[in-house]
């Protein structure tokens, strides 16, 4: 082993033991990592990338077991190493940054104390030294007022700040290796940029090696020196970032790369054919106003995208349209007739006509109902179908969604993959013969490959059945892919609205510009260029 090599995993096999036969999560995977190098691990969920990342710390999740291979960290074998020795390694020489910072911090301790804990636990620093070190790291992670923020509790800072604090916590003992497990996936794009920039600068500054696990190709392109693509617990290919982006070799990698190219052409409105008109909607939770004077139209057989970051009020807007959260004032007209504010006052025809598809298909399907029954329910309730006719119609809907009726009819939701579940949700909405379907972040819980399939299905259904979509999303990429008209929402106000070509091409509204610029691109220099540009702007502003 050369001196420069920090980590060498070879032939690693991780399995879930069970009496019915072991299921394998990692099939003889190997990787090497040099000191100071950043390796990006990408692949869809279930590919084993998090398991491989954690294995680098000699850790497997409860219920899993390492059944073969070796993990050499700085010349020491971690497989079969004594537990107390492993504990001395973790947090000190190998650190871990989890996806959800809010779930990883203890809500009842101050941030500074939690960050210093590892150093104190391992008796590496005195209390004062550790506190000073945490403040220094907070400053390096570009947290505002580090000397004050160490005394804050986790709920008192924003999600982006919490993620920065967690990276600082990992850095306290100056580890040789940090494992980042989707650290920015839960953040808004505008917040993500800053967190990515500070993670990158701190890793470079200390020359720390890192394994960066993500499913977002554009993010990994900014962060990693080298990329490894995984699928079903096996390595597909690996290469340096630039080579991987410009010249992928395997079919699977090429298919990952091509996703972002899916795009429908914008269609203009059919003269005055409007399904829904939303006029002057104001909504509030108690005395806290969430939506202010929202106006837009939903044309027939077109897609309107409502885009905004978390807290912009876009989900509340969906609840107002469906009648779960009646507005304070304003009106919704459906087919030129006013729609009641509360769902219980709407007619059966109006209930059929407005359907919703949720973000998490897991939560949207009753775990105790069979797929056939889930799709049959609206058919039975609204159209009184029974017996053979009902079963035939359900099978027809399943086929429309590219699901095999023979296999699916009697299954329970937990026997399906995420993408299949989301198709069932679409099927249930479609069964009601709706005029408008509200799609609330329908693809954000899915992998990019699966999400693309769902989008294509939605587009095909629109062409076939002439249904209109109100797509609620934070993802500009999704808007570019399928929208005809766009409404940009910020803090409950409409910033800009119009056709896709109008909103997403210059001249931009300021906030739209910020959203667009913050969306990572597949160019490895994107983040560097963006930061240069922003620094330049700032300088220019200061000199004025």
């Amino acid at each position: 082993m050369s001196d420069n090599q920090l980590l060498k995993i070879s032939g690693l096999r991780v399995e879930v033991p069970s009496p019915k036969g072991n299921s394998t999560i990692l099939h003889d995977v190997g990787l090497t990592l040099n000191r100071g190098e950043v390796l990006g691990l990408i692949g869809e969920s279930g590919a084993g990338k998090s398991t491989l990342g954690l294995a680098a710390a000699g850790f497997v999740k409860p219920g899993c077991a390492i059944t073969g291979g070796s993990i050499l960290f700085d010349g020491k074998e971690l497989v079969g190493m004594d537990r107390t020795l492993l504990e001395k390694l973790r947090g000190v020489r190998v650190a871990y940054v989890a996806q959800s910072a809010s779930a990883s911090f203890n809500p009842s301790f101050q941030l500074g104390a939690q960050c210093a804990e590892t150093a104190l636990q391992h008796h590496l620093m005195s209390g004062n030294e550790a506190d000073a070190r945490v403040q220094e790291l907070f400053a390096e992670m570009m947290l505002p007022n580090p000397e004050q923020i160490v005394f804050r509790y986790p709920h008192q800072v924003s999600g982006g700040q919490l993620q920065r604090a967690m990276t600082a916590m990992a850095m306290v003992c100056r580890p040789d290796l940090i494992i980042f497990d989707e650290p920015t996936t839960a953040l808004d794009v505008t917040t993500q940029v800053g967190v990515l920039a500070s993670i990158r600068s701190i890793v470079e500054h200390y020359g720390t090696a890192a394994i960066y696990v993500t499913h977002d190709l554009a993010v990994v392109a900014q962060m990693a020196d080298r990329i490894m693509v995984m699928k079903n617990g096996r390595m597909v290919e690996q290469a340096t970032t630039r080579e991987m982006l410009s010249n992928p070799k395997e079919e699977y990698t090429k298919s990952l790369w091509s996703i972002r190219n899916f795009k429908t052409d914008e269609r203009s409105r059919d003269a005055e054919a409007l399904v829904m008109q939303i006029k002057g909607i104001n909504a509030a939770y108690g005395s806290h106003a969430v939506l202010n004077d929202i106006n837009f139209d939903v044309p027939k057989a077109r897609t309107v995208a409502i885009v905004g970051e978390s807290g912009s009020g876009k989900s509340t807007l969906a609840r107002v349209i469906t009648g779960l959260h009646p507005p304070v004032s304003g009106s919704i007209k459906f087919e030129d007739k006013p729609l009641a504010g509360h769902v219980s006052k709407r007619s059966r025809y109006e209930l059929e006509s407005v359907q919703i598809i949720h973000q998490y298909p897991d939560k949207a399907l009753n775990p105790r109902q069979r797929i056939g029954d889930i799709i049959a329910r609206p058919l039975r309730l609204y159209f009184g179908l029974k017996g053979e006719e009902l079963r035939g119609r359900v099978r027809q809907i399943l086929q429309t969604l590219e699901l095999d009726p023979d296999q699916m009819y009697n299954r329970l939701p937990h026997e399906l993959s995420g993408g299949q579940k989301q198709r069932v949700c679409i099927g249930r909405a479609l069964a009601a013969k709706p005029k408008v379907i509200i799609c609330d972040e329908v693809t954000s819980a899915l992998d990019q490959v699966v999400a693309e399939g769902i989008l294509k299905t939605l587009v095909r259904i629109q062409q076939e059945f002439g249904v209109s979509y109100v797509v609620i999303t934070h993802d500009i990429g999704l808007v570019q892919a399928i929208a005809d008209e766009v409404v940009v929402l910020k803090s409950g106000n409409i910033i800009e609205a119009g056709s896709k070509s109008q909103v997403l091409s210059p001249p931009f509204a300021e906030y739209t510009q910020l959203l667009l610029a913050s969306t990572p691109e597949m160019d490895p220099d994107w983040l560097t260029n963006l930061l240069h540009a922003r620094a330049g702007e700032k300088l220019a502003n200061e000199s004025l």
Partner: protein
Amino acid sequence: MPLETVLAVIGAALIFAIVITALFAPWIAPYGENASVGGAYEPWSAVHVFGTDSIGRDILSRMIYGGRNTIGLAFAATCLAFFIGSALGTAAAVLGGWVDLVLGRLNDLLMAIPQLIFALLILTVVGSSAYTLIAVIGVLESTRVFRLARSLSVSIVHQDFVEVAKLRGESLGWIVFREVVPVSFPNLLAEFGLRFSFTILFVSSLSFLGLGLQPPTADWGALVRENASLIAFGDVTPLLPAGAIALLTVAVNLVVDWYLAKIRRRSAL
């Protein structure tokens, strides 16, 4: 086979044996429930396996009949507790608002009074019979079921599939019985086992204190009390009905533990 499963099989076998013995008491017991068949306080022998009590009744036979009475009473009371508790608890969660508030506070009020003292008070006033015992224990135990059913349902009611059902225009009955209860049912079933154990203990405590089933009817708690004086003479006979209570309670818990682990594993998938 994992240890948990082995223990559950042992527990299930014990429950089966105890329940069969109780159900077929008239055929299995060597003597009648209240028949005086020997001298007072005869020691253990081939004729009277566990000896006789103060008026010459066969203790083994009384234990077998006592099992039938104790288990039957506890089972009926637990069923009543579940009927009241899960119906009201689920309804409170689904309806929310003031219904939830009123039911919740009434439940707190009942729970705030110590169970045993409350039961003693009511039974002293209305008199003790099998029906009053079932009613009093059922209502008192239903407070715990109410809490569980409500908290299980609250997390289910806020899931998207219930929202979808509301948006579809489903009735309250459909939402409670087709959307919420099927999801909370496995947890309620596990609680049924635990509640049943507690109810056996509760019934036995009341009998021991003399407010359970009235003599000469046998039940396990009363059997301990009737023969308690034997302890002073180094005779372990009064410990036998107590042991039977413990055995059944442990057996039920072994099965419940296995079942809970199973549903947790399933929900983790």
